[in-house]
C-alpha cells in the first residue's frame, strides 16, 4: 500500500485543518485554561465535531458510524495536534469506542456505539494505577458476588474521567499483579455508588481524574472474564498510534513555528536562523520528524490492514514519536529564547501538551522495552 493518503483522506484533513484553525486554535485552549474549565474541553465544539462525524469516524456503518478507517482518523488527530485542540476524541472515540467494538457483545455495541458517535456519551478507559503505565501490573480487585462483581481500588490519570458517563474499568478477577491472565474489563456507570471522582488538572491544560472505587457493584463485563488482556492490548495499540498521530501534528506545528521564528528573529543584525549551529540542529529535527511521519502513516495503515505485528509497530511508533516530540519542543523553547519562556507566547503550550502525551499509554522507556520484548530480545 502506498505510504500516502488518498484524496478522500486529504479532503478530510484539509477541512479539519480549516475548521480547527478557525474554531479551536491554541487561543481556545488558553481560554479554557484561564476560565478554569473543569470539563476540559468546549462542549459546543465537541457537538460540532460529532455532527461532522468525527466521533463516529471509525465506527462501523451498522452502528451508525462512517467506517472511514484509521488512516482517516489519524489525519484528524494530526490536525487536532497542530491546534492542541482538547476534546474527548482520545478518551471516547479512539479508546472507549474501540474497546466496545472489539470486546462488546451485540447488545453493548448497539446501545453504546451510536451514542458515542453522536457525541452524547463519554466512555473512557480506567487502567493506570500508579505513575507508570503497566497494564499487566493492574492490581485493582474485582471479586465475584451475586450476579456481578465488586470493585475496590484506585485508578489514576483517567482521561476525561471527570465528565465520563461510562467507565471501562480494568480489574483483576484472577492471578496477581504482573500476570497477563486474570484481567477483566467492566463497564461501570460513572455515577455508581462507591465511586469518587477527583478532578486533576494536567500541565497541558486538559483534565484527567483520579477515581477511587469502594465496593462498587459491577454487573456488566465487557468481553471475557479473565481474558481481558488480549483485547486490552489491541485497544492500547490503537490508542498509542492514534495519540502518536496527534503528537506528530503537535511536533510538526511546533517545528514549523520554530523555523519561522528562526527566520524572523534578528540578533547581531542577522536572522538567528543564519547561525550554522542552529541550522544544523534544525536540520537534525527535520530528519527525525520525517522518520516520525513515515511511522505514523505506516502504523495507521497497519490498523486498517489488521497487521499481525501491530503491537511492535505501535510501540516503536509511540517510542520514536515520544522522543522526537521531546527533542522538538525542548529545542523550540530554547530557540525561541526568553520569549519562549513567557506564557504570552504559544510555543510553551506545545511543550506542555507534549509532556502529557509522552506519558499517556506508556512512555518512551516502556515502549522501547516492549518493542525489544516483542522481537524476543
Amino acid at each position, binding site marked *: 500500500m502506498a505510504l500516502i493518503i488518498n484524496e478522500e483522506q486529504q479532503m478530510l484533513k484539509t477541512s479539519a485543518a480549516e475548521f480547527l484553525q478557525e474554531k479551536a486554535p491554541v487561543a481556545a485552549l488558553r481560554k479554557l485554561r484561564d476560565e*478554569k474549565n473543569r470539563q476540559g474541553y468546549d462542549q459546543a465544539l465537541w457537538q460540532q465535531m460529532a455532527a461532522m462525524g468525527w466521533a463516529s469516524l471509525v465506527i462501523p456503518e451498522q452502528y451508525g458510524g462512517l467506517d472511514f478507517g484509521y488512516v482517516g482518523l489519524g489525519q484528524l488527530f494530526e490536525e487536532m495536534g497542530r491546534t492542541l485542540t482538547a476534546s474527548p476524541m482520545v478518551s471516547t472515540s479512539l479508546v472507549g469506542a474501540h474497546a466496545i467494538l472489539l470486546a462488546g457483545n451485540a447488545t453493548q455495541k448497539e446501545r453504546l456505539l451510536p451514542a458515542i458517535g453522536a457525541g452524547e456519551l463519554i466512555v473512557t478507559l480506567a487502567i*493506570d494505577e*500508579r*505513575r*507508570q*503505565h503497566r497494564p499487566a501490573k493492574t492490581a485493582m480487585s474485582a471479586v465475584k458476588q451475586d450476579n456481578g462483581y465488586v470493585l475496590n481500588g484506585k485508578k*489514576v*490519570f483517567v482521561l476525561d474521567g471527570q465528565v465520563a458517563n461510562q467507565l471501562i474499568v480494568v480489574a483483576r478477577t484472577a492471578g496477581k499483579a504482573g500476570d497477563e491472565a486474570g484481567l477483566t474489563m467492566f463497564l461501570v456507570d460513572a455515577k455508581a455508588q462507591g465511586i469518587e471522582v477527583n478532578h*486533576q*488538572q*494536567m*500541565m*497541558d*491544560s486538559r483534565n*484527567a481524574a483520579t477515581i477511587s472505587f469502594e465496593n462498587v457493584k459491577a454487573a456488566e463485563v465487557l468481553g471475557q472474564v479473565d481474558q481481558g488482556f488480549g483485547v486490552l492490548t489491541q485497544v492500547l495499540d490503537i490508542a498509542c498510534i492514534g495519540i502518536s498521530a496527534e503528537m506528530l501534528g503537535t511536533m510538526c506545528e511546533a517545528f514549523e513555528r520554530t523555523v519561522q521564528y528562526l527566520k524572523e528573529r*534578528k*540578533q*547581531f*543584525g542577522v536572522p538567528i536562523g543564519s*547561525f550554522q*549551529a*542552529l541550522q544544523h540542529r534544525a536540520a537534525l529535527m527535520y530528519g527525525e520528524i520525517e522518520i516520525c511521519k513515515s511511522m505514523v502513516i505506516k502504523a495507521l495503515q497497519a490498523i486498517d490492514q489488521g497487521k499481525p505485528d501491530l503491537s511492535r509497530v505501535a510501540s516503536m511508533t509511540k517510542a520514536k514519536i515520544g522522543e522526537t516530540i*521531546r527533542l522538538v519542543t*525542548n529545542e523550540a*523553547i*530554547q530557540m525561541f*529564547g*526568553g*520569549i*519562549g*519562556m*513567557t*506564557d*504570552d507566547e504559544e510555543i*510553551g503550550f506545545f*511543550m*506542555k501538551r507534549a*509532556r*502529557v502525551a509522552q*506519558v*499517556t499509554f506508556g*512512555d*518512551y*522507556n516502556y515502549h*522501547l*522495552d516492549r518493542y525489544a520484548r516483542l522481537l524476543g530480545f
Partner: protein
Amino acid sequence: METITQQDLDVFRAETRAWLEANCPESIRQTPKSMEDVFWGGSNPHYKSEDQKQWFERMRDRGWTTPMWPKAYGGGGLSKQQNKVLLEEMTRLNCQTPLFSFGISMLGPALLKFGNEAQKKEHLTAISRGEVWWCQGYSEPGAGSDLAGLQTRAEDMGDHYLVSGQKVWTSYAENADMIFCLVRTNPDAKKHTGISFLLIDMQSEGVSTRPIQLISGKSVFCETFFDNVKVPKENLVGELNAGWSIAKYLLTHERSMIGGVGDVRKEKPLFQLAIDAVGRDNGKLDDPVLRADIARWMIDQEGLMWTIERTTDEAKAGQPIGAKSSFFKYYYTEQNKLKYELLMALNGTEAATWGDTYDEGKLARDFCRTKGNSIEGGTSEIQLNIISKHILGLG
C-alpha cells in the same frame, strides 16, 4: 592593609564568633527556603519576622551587609582575609544573609569601579543600609543574546536625559525603587560604542512596569517601560557612551554567580527518588533505561562538582580561570534541565499534573522553569561561542 598577621586574624575570628553567637537570633540560623524568605531591603521594607529585622539592623550597623566595602560608604571595611573569616563563621552558625540585593551583588561592584565620588557616597551607602531596592535594566525585546543591540534611547536635553524605550526581564521591577540601565546615547556610533550606564528612579513620571507570566506560572520578572522619562545628568555612571565596558564587567560577574549556584538544600540523591517512585526488580531499578540515564547523570554531576573543585584549586595555585565560567554556566544549566527531565520521567503521569497554585504541580512547573536556565544569564549557545572563541581560539 594586607600585612594582617595570622594572629590578628585569629583574634578577629574569636571576636566575630562571639559577636555572631550573641547577636544572630536563633530563627535566623537556618537556610532560607526560597528567595522570598530573604530580606531584600528597599524603601518599603518587608521583614518576615522581628528577628529578621533585628539581625539586619545589627549587621547593618557594623557595615556587615557589605563587609568589604569601605566604611565611608556604609561598608565593613574588612580585608579579603577578614571577609573570609566572617563568611566562615556565618556558615558555621548557618546564619542567613542579612540583606540580599542586586545593589550589593551587581550595581555595587560597578559603582566601586566606575562611579564618581558623589555616586559612591550616595548610592553605596543607601545600598549598604538596605534603603534602596535596585533592579537591573539590560535586556530588551529586540536585544537578548545581542545585548549591544539595545534600542532604549537617552537623549541629551541639556540639563537632563530623556529616556524612552522598553526593558524586559527586569527582576522585581515592581518592588524596585531604582533601576540601573543600559541606554543608547549615540545612535550613530557603532553599536557597542553608543551605550551609556544610567541610574533611573522608578518613581519618575513615565516609568511603568508589567509582570511577566512564565510557562511555569508567576515570576519575579517584569517588563519596564520608559515613556519620555527625565533623568538627571548626575545619574550617568562612567563616561558617556562608555557603558558597554561596565556592562561587560557586570555580566562576567553575573555569569560566575549563576554558574556557582548550587542546590541550597540537601536533596535525596536522584537514584533514591527513582527507587521510591519506580521500585526495584531483582535489586535493580525497575526500568533499565531510566537506570542508565540516572547513572549517567549522576556521574556527570559528580564530575562537574569535581571540576569546580579542581578549577578552584587551580585558581588558588595561580592558574587563571578565564572563560571557564562559561563552561560551568553551560554544563550546570544543561545538567539541571536534564535532572528535571529525569524527575519527570520517573514520576510518570503524576509529574504531568498541574493546578491553580504553584505548589500543586510543583514538579511540572519547576521542570518548565528549568528550561529557562539555558537562556537566562547568557544562552547556552552564547556560552559555547565563548568557549570556542576564548578557550579554543576558534573564530
